[in-house]
């Protein structure tokens, strides 16, 4: 029998607001343990939650980016569960009345028609404390760090529309891109600002039934989500074929062993409305403002880059994936005569250089104006491409225009014919057998000799001129 998977995702996204959800403590869980705490996020007796307006605004923006309908009224509940990472015994979460409902993303999975994957709802909730398991001498101890307690999260709950690991990964990538565009979160699974749980069940192909699902947690990258979902589909399929029942439970993904293993359940009960946090009322005028302020989303921007600047679709997709990079490109494209050349330089040179430094374009000294100046130096043959790449790397960490870097480091291109002829003659004299080989009809030798000549010129030679001289000398 052929089975198909039914997959739903629950995605926690940590909002990057300056403060926590219900108090003024800095939203910076990575600091020294228990330094960003107060009576409210420690939930001391008598402390009351104070809802942050900034959190609501960022959450609404993220929900709009996921095409959700913002609810006029949403409210917090006490989600009761007992575990030491939540010593107050309940988490404030919007169980009954979430902030937003009925969203969707049209996900490109390589087919001609994108997959329309629905979002059931998005709710706000506070993060819990972090447990640290350690030893004091030989005694195992568990410590609690409250820096993370009260950090604002949105939880995106999808409909069970996803059918394959690839769809799950494509959905997460698009969701991450769109939320990043709003500036509400970095959405990094690796750094913990995005966490994904997957609910997976299988059924015979063609069936519309929803069978018992298994929840998988602890996936620290989008690739892990794909791997874990694929493994769980295999595991459940094997169970079905053996006639073993699928039992409702939660499993942990082990990325080293590439398997899921059962985990201990936390006790959880129904949610009770919380009277201390007043309901969130969203009026139409305020919502209209937020919608108007929403940035152009990456998929629309990609199409526009194709139309407006003549980029290929994959080029436009690569450029528009991150908002600051797309804006960087467009500032250049509006003023530079060869936008596609700029796009190629960004994709092939700038993006890898940024990745090497683990930074984004807004975090470096490089400005669109300076990048444009660098490209102009190449266009006017002031420097060659190899030198431009070296200058670009320096421009990321140096607050100087490219001309200054070029002059300071002697990157300017050599176009002096006499000097280049001497270099070529030296190279040809030093490689007589290769010269003979070329003249005997092996054109591939040209590349080798050209490389030698450029190296002898320390990469500064005008390559076009160098090749002309080399060709001429070899044919003599």
């Amino acid at each position: 029998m052929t089975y198909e998977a039914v997959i739903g995702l629950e995605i926690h996204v940590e909002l990057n607001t300056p403060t926590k959800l219900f108090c003024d403590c800095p939203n910076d869980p990575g600091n020294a343990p228990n330094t960003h705490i107060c009576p409210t996020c420690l939930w001391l007796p008598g402390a009351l939650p104070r809802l942050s307006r900034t959190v609501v605004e960022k959450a609404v923006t993220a929900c709009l980016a996921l095409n959700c309908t913002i609810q006029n009224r949403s409210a917090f509940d006490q989600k009761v569960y007992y575990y030491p990472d939540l010593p107050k015994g309940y988490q404030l979460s919007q169980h009954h009345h979430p902030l937003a409902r009925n969203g969707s993303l049209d996900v490109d999975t390589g087919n001609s028609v994108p997959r329309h994957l629905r979002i059931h709802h998005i709710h706000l909730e506070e993060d819990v404390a972090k447990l640290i398991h350690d030893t004091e001498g030989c005694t195992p101890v568990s410590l609690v760090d409250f820096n993370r307690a009260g950090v604002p999260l949105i939880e995106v709950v999808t409909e069970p529309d996803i059918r394959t690991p690839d769809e799950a990964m494509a959905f997460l990538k698009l969701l991450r891109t769109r939320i990043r565009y709003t500036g509400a979160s970095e959405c990094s699974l690796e750094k913990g600002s995005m966490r994904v749980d997957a609910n997976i069940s299988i059924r015979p192909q063609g069936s519309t039934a929803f069978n018992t699902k298994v929840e998988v947690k602890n996936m620290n990258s989008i690739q892990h989500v794909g791997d874990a979902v694929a493994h769980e589909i295999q595991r459940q399929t094997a169970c079905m074929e053996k006639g073993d029942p699928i039992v409702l439970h939660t499993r942990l993904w082990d990325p080293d062993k590439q398997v899921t293993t059962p985990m201990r359940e936390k006790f959880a009960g129904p949610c009770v409305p919380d009277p201390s946090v007043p309901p969130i009322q969203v009026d139409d005028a305020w919502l209209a403002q937020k919608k108007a302020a929403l940035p152009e989303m990456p998929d629309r921007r990609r199409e526009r880059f194709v139309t407006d600047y003549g980029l290929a679709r994959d080029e436009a997709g690569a450029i528009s994936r991150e908002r600051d990079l797309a804006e960087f490109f467009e500032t250049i494209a509006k003023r530079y005569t060869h936008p596609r050349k700029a796009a190629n330089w960004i994709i092939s040179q700038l993006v890898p250089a940024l990745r090497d430094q683990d930074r984004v374009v807004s975090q470096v000294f490089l400005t669109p104006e300076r990048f444009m100046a660098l490209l102009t130096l190449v266009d006017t043959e002031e420097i060659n491409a190899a030198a431009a790449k070296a200058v670009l790397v320096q421009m990321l960490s140096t607050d100087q225009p490219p001309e200054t870097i070029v002059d300071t480091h002697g990157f300017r291109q050599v176009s002096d014919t006499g000097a280049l002829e001497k270099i070529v003659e030296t190279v040809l004299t030093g490689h007589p057998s290769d010269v003979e080989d070329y003249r005997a009809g092996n054109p591939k030798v040209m590349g080798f000799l050209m490389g030698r000549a450029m190296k002898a010129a320390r990469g500064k030679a005008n390559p076009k001129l160098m090749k002309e001289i080399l060709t001429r000398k070899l044919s003599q």
Partner: protein
Amino acid sequence: MDSSVFSFTPLPADFDAADALRIAVQPGMSCRGWPAGAGTTALENFTALEDAFVIQQLKQTGMVIAGATRMSELGLGLTRDTGALAVTDGRADAALIIDYLGEARAAGAKARIFGFKPSWGSVSRQGLTGLVPSMECWGITGRRILDIQQVMTAICAPDDHDFSMHPGPLPDFTESHQFQDRAPVIGVADGYDASLTPEEIRAWKSGLAALETAGCRITRISLPDAALFSLAHHIIASVEASSSAGRYDGVRYGHRTSASDNWNEMYLKTRGESFGTLIKSFLFQGAYFQFQQYATFEQACRLRGLLMDQTLATLSELDGLAGLTITDKADPVAAQTIDHTYQAFGFTLPASLTGLPAVQIPGLACHGSKDFGLHITGKPFKDPDLLALARFLENMGNTGGTP
């Protein structure tokens, strides 16, 4: 210094407060540096880190926090509570008593002094160690309505720390609220006396007669579902308590069990050892509705809305809704079970459920040596009018207080 009245006080017994009002508080109300165990083992080592907003306001207006009284566990009911005793013993001019069911008003009735519960949302709950968030508030007992008015003038103010406060203008106690130009209109529910004992009926009639003698106009009103107040209160309050009391885990600042195999065991044992029988019963009942009968909890919430609507509609034509404060059937000071507690507070809990202001007036609803207290519920956020009415009755009749 401890005493039978105070569990903690920084003041000597002969402390002279001069003209300042002396306020007794409960150890569930945060006073910086004071023990704040709220009468429960779960919090027995907790010391308040900061003053509650209310305490700050009282201090700012020159009042003296005289000491922390003894209190029932987490303030539910009145067993062990010495708030009213602090007033009648002359150790304080007013005592603050957390009010879920009518504790401050019932304490007033038992001690034959005044008791008051403000509108929910008119006084910040910051710093109050509560159990039932949608009902809990700072109740006040005092010998004189004037003292209660002064306390309310100090504490009824906006507080950025409590987002659940009334978003509109708060009651203004500095304005003049008097009943000299017209007769107050007091409503009495049809069939109210049907459940009263003969002795209570006589006291009730005596109270009504006193109201009429004072110039009030008594009018009959209909509250068809009044019998359901207690049921709705019981279900909602116990569920809220069951959920909210998770905060008082004991592990962090109260009693922590001495032996356990793992942390889950440790939490379970600690909670089991930390709470007394009454609170445990209440939490179990709430947990039952929360986990087994959630639909019933939702029905109770809808019922609360219905009762609120009925009460507000009734009050629109009235200055107050009258009844007795306490009953002979169960003693609020001695109630040891949830059933007895609900019986003992049956007359006061409707105001807690609906969040309305209510006042207990001594000396009017009496029979023989017994004073059942006259209980008047006011309109939402018309707390100054209600206290003005109480003061009017205080001045017109023998209420036992000091005019």
